[in-house]
């Protein structure tokens, strides 16, 4: 059995691990268009800050590929997939035949049409790859006025600006929406976040877009013109608006694509023996109850694992995922889970706010469907488990708001351990001499 995996990141490696768990001898080939072994892609901003280094940015241990007998092909870009004769064609013309194929090609950065944007300039670019981070590190040294513009106030933009700020530049975030992290945060939390950014030398221009980048003679940016007509100085321009599924190379392969790759419950695409996962796949969103692209690390790993298990011949279904994210901005931890801005009238919002902490819960009837935690995030995992399982927990509303999120776990665990009920013998099973291994069945 020959398995071919396109994409050497979270989804692809998780898929390879799952295959290896059930199939110890099959050939696994991992194709990547980058020249590095797997690295922690979202950490490139921490690389600029110096929180991770050239030694610690690697996702797996050094001998990971040899130990698991994975064949790694670096710097090879897949240009097309021929599903009829079961082969992947690479850029250099080589053809790789497969029995089972996994596509974890991830996303390519989306650049809105902007006059003057030139990704080949050493002072301009997107921010999703290790090479981008290295480029920006170099660019920061050549910046004359120490001014940087980051287009996009989402997670990529925020982390990019934090990284550039750590390199000593003054950063301005230009965001189309009325606040940073506009899709995940609400007005109050967005304002708290903006305030924290402004205190640390990052300006936010919200409700704005960059209409034109003025270039100097060498093709490097000099200044940018905003929609409102304002002109800002810029040595560096980073576009971090978002990513789109990287599915261009699948054209003509017969694989059904609607924005991303359409998959069924087993993560198989519309073509047999071809599976997909990660940022490139469209999965079922359990909260919005519709197919959706959710580009986050935990789901990429889950999808890869389900796909890999099925590829190795063990049936497994993926129940679907939900959006959740966590970020820390200058000491302010932010966790957003599920539907944070109510979409219809049946959803009710409960809020708690004091000096350092902000909590928001969104309930749909008795079911918790979304939450924002700012400042104090302890126990946020319990909330994400509750939201994902759709548990009825309206009676815990006040305790969640006050930060006693653990009380839910205590109650449910005590129920499992069965020691708050009247009939259970206090002191657990040791007091039950009748039970032993021999008469258990």
């Amino acid at each position, binding site marked *: 059995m020959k398995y071919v995996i396109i994409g050497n990141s979270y989804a692809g490696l998780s898929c390879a691990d799952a295959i290896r768990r059930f199939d110890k001898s099959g050939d696994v080939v991992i194709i990547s268009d980058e020249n590095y072994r797997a690295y922690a892609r979202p950490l490139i901003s921490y690389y600029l800050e110096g929180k991770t280094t050239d030694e610690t940015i690697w996702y797996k241990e050094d001998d990971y590929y040899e130990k698991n007998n994975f064949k790694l092909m670096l710097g090879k870009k897949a240009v097309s997939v021929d599903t009829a004769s079961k082969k992947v064609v690479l850029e250099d013309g080589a053809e790789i035949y497969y029995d089972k194929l996994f596509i974890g090609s991830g996303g390519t950065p989306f650049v809105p049409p902007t006059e003057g944007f030139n990704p080949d300039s050493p002072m301009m670019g997107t921010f999703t790859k290790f090479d981008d981070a290295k480029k920006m590190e170099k660019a920061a040294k050549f910046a004359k006025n120490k001014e940087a513009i980051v287009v996009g106030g989402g997670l990529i933009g925020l982390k990019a600006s934090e990284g550039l700020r750590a390199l000593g530049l003054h950063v301005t975030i230009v965001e189309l929406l009325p606040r940073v992290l506009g899709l995940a945060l609400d007005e109050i939390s967005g304002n708290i976040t903006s305030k924290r950014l402004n205190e640390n030398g990052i300006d936010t221009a919200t409700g704005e877009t960059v209409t034109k980048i003025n270039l100097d003679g060498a093709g490097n940016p000099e200044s940018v013109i905003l929609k409102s007509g304002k002109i800002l100085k810029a040595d560096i321009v980073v576009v971090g608006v978002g990513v789109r599924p990287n599915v261009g190379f699948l054209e003509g392969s017969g694989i059904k694509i609607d924005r991303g790759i359409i998959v069924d419950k087993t993560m198989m695409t519309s073509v047999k023996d071809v599976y997909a996962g990660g940022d490139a796949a469209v999965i079922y969103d359990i909260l919005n109850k519709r197919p959706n692209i959710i580009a986050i690390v935990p789901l990429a790993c889950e999808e890869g694992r389900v796909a890999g298990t099925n590829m190795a011949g063990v049936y497994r279904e993926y129940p679907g995922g939900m959006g959740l*994210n966590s970020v820390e901005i200058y000491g302010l931890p932010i966790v957003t889970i599920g539907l944070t801005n109510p979409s219809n009238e049946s959803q009710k919002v409960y809020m708690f706010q004091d000096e350092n902490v902000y909590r928001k819960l969104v309930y749909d009837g008795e079911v918790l469907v979304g939450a924002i935690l700012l400042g104090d995030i302890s126990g946020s995992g319990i909330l994400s488990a509750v939201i994902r399982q759709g548990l009825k927990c309206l009676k815990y509303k006040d305790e969640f708001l006050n930060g006693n999120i653990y009380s839910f*776990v205590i109650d449910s665990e005590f129920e499992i351990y*069965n020691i708050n009920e009247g009939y*259970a013998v206090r002191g657990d099973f040791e007091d039950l001499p009748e039970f032993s*291994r021999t008469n258990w069945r």
Partner: protein
Amino acid sequence: MQNKLTNLKEDLKKNQIEIMLYPSKCDGCESEGFAACIKACEVHMSKKFGSKYAGARINIKKKAGRFFPIICHNCEEAPCVDACMPGARYKDTESGWTVTNYKKCVGCWMCVMTCPFGAIERIGAGHFASKCDGCIDESMPKCVEACKKGALKRIGIKNYSYERRLMVAKKIYGPYIKSVEKR
């Protein structure tokens, strides 16, 4: 206890080791003024990881007179491993425990956000997410050693599943067992 689980030693030697909770026995060490397990863990962690990554990996939460030790449950397909962006958290293949390479941890709090037991703590000052590693290189987890109430026990995976099954059985057949006992 001993005669019932005859293969306890063998199980401990051969199989993955888990920490079993008996929350009904936990009283939070209220009379002592400090929880013995937390104290023991703190001391051991600062010895093991140095002052930078010190701090207890076990916590006791109280609700209406009931105490529950919050500790890593060592999930089979751990959400914290999936969520870990730098690859700092991984499954130790030898011991089967989910452990952390704190040098790689950058403090993105993805694991804190996904742990369904709330067993991972954000250490804001040190910028790392601390989680129990089961004391895999020790002969006995320090919290288990310190607990004098019998609320924590070290146990092999076979006995662990056996005891959990017993608990479920007791929940379903509990009333029946009690009536047998009375007779």
